[in-house]
């Protein structure tokens, strides 16, 4: 365990050693508060801890955004402070908040420092989640990685890691090559055509999914290599047939966190519809803010809230849409939200959304976007393929052909990663 903790800290330092002290201070502070609570028993202590965690994330992630908007109300201009965002701060802060709140609820013990520190810093999930709960991971630290089933866990973990890596390196990066230039053009004020906006939207939806779920697969796969089970984070979100269904499939550990530590404490569905609307909108608005310090993110979160409430009201009518219609409507709703989320400014988002619905014409011309058809091809694994965890953890059989193919893919991905940042000087377009 000591080695794993050390490896995790080295891993974090490798990204940016400047933030290692912050991570260590955060871990030590939260653990000390837990011990203090155990000794003193005052229910305010965990809340103080929560406030301190929020203060830390507030300073590093939201100080510029909040100050800029306050000064805007004041009528003053603001030069943003040069604050670098520590890697993974949103994840390790939320894990610790959930622990402190569970402690206060009497649902968590005070763990030995080593176990607690490893829980927070365990490198596979430190940077980009999943947001793991203490009782999902810490109990496993006592299990020997060489216990029965070791070879199977190693094999399945390797395959899941590999699928995640392929999602990131092949699928997500290819989709980024399509979506990023189009969004950049739109940000510069270029009016994209109807078809171009749809290519950008589809490309970005797939990029986001493959990228994020790829990281989660890698984290879960790496966890398995060490003998640990980490909860799944994505479950084919683009086959969802309602917004509610989508949030049960997309970033599952965050949805769970928001439900248990925001939505339910805010009243949930227990006090009538107005209170529920309030709880949903606050939860999703803050959920949006968690994703990024911008009005676009907040608006995206609120848009999700509107979708969830609409979903709830529709369910009350008892009318069932055909599954295909429900799926299509959900997907369009989700993609329209991404346009707000991805755009650099709100006017850009409005322009792109208006173009999507034909406000600026129906041109099917797509200029200078190579491999645009990949958007359709790459959508297939997201829509009809088995999920990566289903493939790696359920369907995979120990056949030599699979091992050979996986090894070949692994080496190919190593080559591709070697190519990262490499590009020829292709700048002639006569």
């Amino acid at each position: 365990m000591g080695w794993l903790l050390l490896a995790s800290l080295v891993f974090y330092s490798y990204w940016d050693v400047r933030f290692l002290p912050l991570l260590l201070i955060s871990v030590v502070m939260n653990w000390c508060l837990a011990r203090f609570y155990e000794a003193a028993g005052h229910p305010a202590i965990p809340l103080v801890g929560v406030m301190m965690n929020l203060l830390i994330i507030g300073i590093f992630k939201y100080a510029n955004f909040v100050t800029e908007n306050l000064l805007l109300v004041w009528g003053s201009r603001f030069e943003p402070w040069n604050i670098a965002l520590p890697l993974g701060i949103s994840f390790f802060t939320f894990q610790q908040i959930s622990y402190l709140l569970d402690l206060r609820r009497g649902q968590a013990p005070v763990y030995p420092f080593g176990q607690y520190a490893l829980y927070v810093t365990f490198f596979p999930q430190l940077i980009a989640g999943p947001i793991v709960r203490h009782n999902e991971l810490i109990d496993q630290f006592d299990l020997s990685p060489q216990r029965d089933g070791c070879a199977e866990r190693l094999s399945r973990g390797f395959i899941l890691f590999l699928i995640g890596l392929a999602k990131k390196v092949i699928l997500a990066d290819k989709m980024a090559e399509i979506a990023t230039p189009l969004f950049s053009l739109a940000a510069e004020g270029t009016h994209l055509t109807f078809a171009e906006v749809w290519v950008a939207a589809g490309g970005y939806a797939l990029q986001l999914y493959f990228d994020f779920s790829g990281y989660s697969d890698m984290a879960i796969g790496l966890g398995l290599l060490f003998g640990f089970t980490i909860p799944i984070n994505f479950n084919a979100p683009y086959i969802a047939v309602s917004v509610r269904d989508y949030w049960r499939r997309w970033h599952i550990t965050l949805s769970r966190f928001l439900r248990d530590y925001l939505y339910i404490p805010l009243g949930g569905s227990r006090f009538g519809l107005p209170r529920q609307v309030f709880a949903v909108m606050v939860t999703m608005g803050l959920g949006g803010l968690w994703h990024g310090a911008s009005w676009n993110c907040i608006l995206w979160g609120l848009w999700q809230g509107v979708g969830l409430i609409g979903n709830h009201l529709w369910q009350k009518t008892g009318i069932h849409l055909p599954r295909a219609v429900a799926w299509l409507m959900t997907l369009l709703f989700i993609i329209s939200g991404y346009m707000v989320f991805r755009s650099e400014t709100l006017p850009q988002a409005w322009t792109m959304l208006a173009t999507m619905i034909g406000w600026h014409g129906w041109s099917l011309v797509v200029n200078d976007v190579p491999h645009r058809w990949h958007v359709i091809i790459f959508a297939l694994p997201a829509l009809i393929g088995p999920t990566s965890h289903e493939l790696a953890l359920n369907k995979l059989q120990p056949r030599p052909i699979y091992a050979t193919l996986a090894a070949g893919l692994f080496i190919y991905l190593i080559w591709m990663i070697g190519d990262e940042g490499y590009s020829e000087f292709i700048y002639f377009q006569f």
Partner: protein
Amino acid sequence: MKDIRNLSIFSSSGDWKAFLRTAACVVLILFLGSVIFILVVDPYASIPFSPNWERTTVDGDQRLFYPNLARSARFDSAIIGTSSGRLLRPEGLNKRFASQFVNLCLNAASVYEQEAMLNIFLAHHPHPRTIIFGIDHVYFKPEYDKQHIGPSENWPEWLYDQNPLNNFPPYRLHTLTHAWHQFLSMAGLKTYKYGRDGYTDFTRPMDEYDLDRARVKIYGTQEPKPVKAVVPPTRMSSAEIEAFKFSSLAILARMLSKLPDETLKILVLTPAHNFIQPAPGSASAIRWQEFLRRLTELTRNLPRGYVLNFNIPSPITTQDANYWDGQHYTVVVAAELESLIAEGVRGTIDNANYVRLVANKYRVLSPQNFIEK
């Protein structure tokens, strides 16, 4: 989903051990196989102990392949510059200068990169017969002063630092692809379009030339626009002009200082389209004139040095049909330039509209000195 905390129920652990063993063996075989393939084929001719086979340029990434050309004993002269010099054909210059040229111009080369290329050439040809420098906007535009002084993002410094201990190509897909192409080339299974003297026509065939498209590249629209003089002309104090920074000239001075006196040194200010040349009366025109002044100063006493300025309003630079875009002239112009450079150096040029000598106005008394051995 299965509980994976304690898996051993679906198949015997022996199967999974075999699965892991197979995967590990295949990874090892592929890894070692690919490394050995790269080491033997040696796509960039950089590995000291690889078989001594002839390697050629098999891909457009000049930064990786041209060091091999720069080392080649087949040449005694070189063209150094950016894409604005790439269309100068060694075979069009060899006879005129009684030299064996290699064109080592790199797309979008920073001045740093040009010097690195020259360094390799000089390390293997300490007494070059002729060096032609293509001088363009990367030398004098202010935005390039910082950006183009250092290497570009993908610059393979390991190939240029003259340290044989780090001459192993990076382990990546591109290296393997290049090794594969090199293998096909060496086995005679495929030929590549890249010239053995560094020359490649990177433009489209002239019968595909589209004047409207070229005008869009030059002017931003299909309609030609006149050069607009700035009225009233921009005025700058001598102190402001003195404060102009041309970091590239320091590197150029260093490059020139490395060349022996007997080497013929030709500095060609390549012809950009007149529309993108500094507009009369503009601040950039003042900067351009100051650049010319300092360049003239730098090369005043350069032994066997010539500076030919084609970057002027001229029958070349005012004809849209001579250009693909603002910076890149056609192969027709390139062929004309080859002859004009030779004439300019001889001092016999009769069309002063094309060429102005901005420094070293000495006429060469006896052209035979270097045209005929």
